[in-house]
């Protein structure tokens, strides 16, 4: 039995990550030897973009990677 390599990424949604969701649900990552997991957000990870400005945006994107609990995120 082949050992799967774990890859933790930031969660995606259908509008920007339908391919990832399908790959997860249909065993395509597993077939490639990957165990892709979605990192879990904590309350402090969720920041409303309403609080930012155009030149100083506030976004949750990349927050889990900053915290070291996800290795990839989609920008």
């Amino acid at each position, binding site marked *: 039995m082949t050992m799967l390599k774990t890859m933790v990424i930031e969660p995606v949604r259908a509008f920007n990550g339908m391919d990832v969701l399908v790959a997860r649900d249909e065993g395509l990552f597993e077939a490639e030897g990957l165990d892709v997991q979605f990192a879990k957000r904590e309350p402090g990870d969720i920041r409303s973009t309403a609080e930012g400005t*155009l030149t100083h945006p506030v*976004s949750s994107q990349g927050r889990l990677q900053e915290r070291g609990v996800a290795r990839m995120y989609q920008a």
Partner: protein
Amino acid sequence: MVVCGALVVAPFSPVYTPQELAHRVVALDYGNGTAYAGLQMLESAMPREAVTTRSFDANPSKRYAALMAGEFDATVLQEPWITVAEKAGCRLVSTTFFYGTWVADDTVDAEAYAAFVRATTEAARRINADKRAYARYYKTDDFEVTPDVQALSLDDFNLSRIQVKAPEPIPEADARWDWDWMSSWGLLNGTFDIESQINTAVQQAAHAGR
């Protein structure tokens, strides 16, 4: 993944074209790709000084609700909220497409990323073979479960707004253009340096076997 973004106005809006959004308030989720897509649609239709935006939540259901409540003149939406808005009589005054780009830290090696690319490439092939069926993901994997989205049927979705393709390396010219465009809006400082932005060795190795 290619994301569709649309500039949307409420059914009661006097606006029918993107040019008519000059000096009108457009709500954007600053910091996200949809916001930058919105800016690009606006600047293609008017001088920059006429582009008037405000920050709003990244959750499109909140932007949609505020649009319908008349809190601003327009907003940018993505699926499934473009479809929700159209069903409610809203008008799309401009639509565009943009790439979502994966950002990886330096623990992701070429072998792992290549496996990720192969898996999502096969997923893209399957989605393109039956977009109508895979549109179900809009109902299960959105920001939250909402009655507006649950009320949609799979036949409601415009399949031309679902665009999926195999991941490819980022062309340097495209990355440079993006950097320069963002700099022109004051979003980035300094000059573009490909070596600091893209690990080309990992990128090339990951895509070599496609």
